[in-house]
């Protein structure tokens, strides 16, 4: 269970103070898939980073399975991210000199876990068999995002945080990625998809809107 309690995040830009997230609360149970819509600059990415343990909020707490994420130190939080959180981004963020299969296996650098033939399963599942020895620069946008998604799912995390993941994809690949998110939540995972695209939200259990850091 994910519990976001009254979080606020400020940024200091020169002399002005920007409130990226404003006293935001949210509770999600296992298997829930929520879409959060919002315009650019509304605080979507900041919210995902805060939930994912990357960005300490100025106020409020994040509880995952009743554990306060920010009570952990940096290294503990890193280990926690490796095991519990899957990230997927609009810009893919693949490691340029690693092949598809190596990119999918990259989380092993963060944490040594027994994964058996998990990499091959994921390659199969995301239709990347033909591409597994290719470098990211040789891939289409859809293949890149499928690789990124496979990497996020390597350790079977509890929560999948998807930041405008369909922004760079054609409809076919968008469909495929959204179906994968759906499947992940159907298997008990929590999915938060943030997007400014109306249609992308259609697969979610519920859709909310964020504006100026306030969720409604």
């Amino acid at each position, binding site marked *: 269970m994910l519990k976001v309690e009254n979080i606020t995040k400020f940024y200091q830009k020169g002399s002005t103070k920007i409130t990226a997230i404003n006293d935001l609360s949210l509770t999600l149970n296992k298997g829930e898939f929520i879409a959060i819509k919002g315009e650019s600059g509304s605080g979507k*990415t900041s919210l995902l*980073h805060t939930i*994912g343990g*990357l*960005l300490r909020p100025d106020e409020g707490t994040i509880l995952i399975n009743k554990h306060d994420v920010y009570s952990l130190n*940096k*290294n503990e939080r*890193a*280990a*926690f*991210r*490796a*095991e519990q*959180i899957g*990230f997927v*981004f*609009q*810009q893919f*963020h*693949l*490691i*340029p*000199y*690693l092949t598809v299969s*190596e990119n999918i*296996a*990259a*989380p*092993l*650098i*963060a*944490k*040594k876990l027994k994964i058996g033939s998990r990499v091959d399963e994921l390659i199969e599942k995301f239709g990347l068999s033909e591409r597994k020895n290719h*470098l990211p620069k040789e891939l289409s946008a859809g293949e890149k995002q499928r690789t990124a998604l496979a*990497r*996020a799912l390597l350790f079977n995390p509890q929560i999948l945080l998807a*930041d*405008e993941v369909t922004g760079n994809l054609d409809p076919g690949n968008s469909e495929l990625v959204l179906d994968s998110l759906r499947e992940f939540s159907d298997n008990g995972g929590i999915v938060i998809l943030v997007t400014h695209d109306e249609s992308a939200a259609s697969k979610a259990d519920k859709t909310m809107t964020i504006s100026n850091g306030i969720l409604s």
Partner: protein
Amino acid sequence: MNTFKLVNREIFRRKVNYLIGFAIVAITTAIVIGTLSLLKIHDLQTAQILAQKEAELNERVLVLQDDYRKISLELGFNLLIIPEGQNLGNFYADDFASKYMDESVTDKLVSSRTLTIQHLLPSLTQKIVWPEQKQSIILIGTKGEVPYLYRNPKKPMLQPVPDGGMVLGYELHRILNLKEGSKVKLLGREFTITKCNERRGSKDDATVWIPLKDAQELLNKEGKINAILALKCHCASGTLTNIIQSVKELIPNVQVLQKNKEVAIRAKARDRAKREAKEALKAEELSRTELKNEQLRFAKVLIPLVIITGAFMICLTFIANVKSRQDEIGILRTIGTKQHTILIMFLMKSILIAIPAAVTGYLIGIFTSTISVENFELSELFGTFALIITICLAGLISTAASWLPALYASLQDPAKIIQD
């Protein structure tokens, strides 16, 4: 996937960045090792040169000593015994006595059981004109006798001139064009030339030596001699007077002169030559040391400068590498990689650059430093221990140089980097 594998992939799929770092470390190492190797070559050469010079010096001293030995044998009559009443003024003017004494006095010396003289050379000397050759000569008839104490039945007596033989001074055989082995007549008697002396630059060059008996007969002085040369008196200088004393006791009617001036001069010359050679050796050693010190002064500036430059360039290379890998660092951190793993990732790379580059640089340094030098085997300069030290130092310096960029990389805030 693990950190080492990741670093390897980065190196193999981004060769240029790796090769730049490799080149910097290899060149730096090559310059440092090349310089050190040149210094070592200089030392080895110095040792070689000095050893050679010393060998030459020793050989020269040996030759001088041998010369001296020969000279003291031929000329070094430590004592000259001449008849009593001989006018010494005339003697020094002519170089031989005009008075005579009986050859039998020699026998008294020879049969003495206490006299410490190794050789006795009774002689009859006269200045004559060699009638057959129409040439002024100093004719010396002489023979060798060994006093009782030094008689050795196994060793033949030292005979200055063999029977029927003749020894010629340098000028004589040169002017008269006489060769060893040829026969020649003197005062009607035939002699075989047994030896043609080398140039001595003294009266010896105008001297003819023949056996004493022949000289006595030819000069009508049977049983007469005008000097006895006493050779190799076994004495420290203090006991020389004792020997002179005992000679005078054995044969009272003689004068005993010390005749070793020439030997002393030669000995002095020998010592001077020895000293000069030693001084030359020292001067050479000094100039080599001077040169070495100059090289050392140069190396002391060059080596740190090269190392600092190399380290600085490695640092810049890593800054560039870190900058171009921001996104990668961000994502690795986001998916849970710890800060120190990022640090290790970069330090590992710097070590993977440094080790093979240090080996390459070491070999290049040693190889290039020997190219221009002769007589040097690479194996003389190559040292496994030195190589290990080089690798360690190169690794250490590269790691230190890449430390700050690596630390900077590890401290990046992933949330900032991956903000889409």
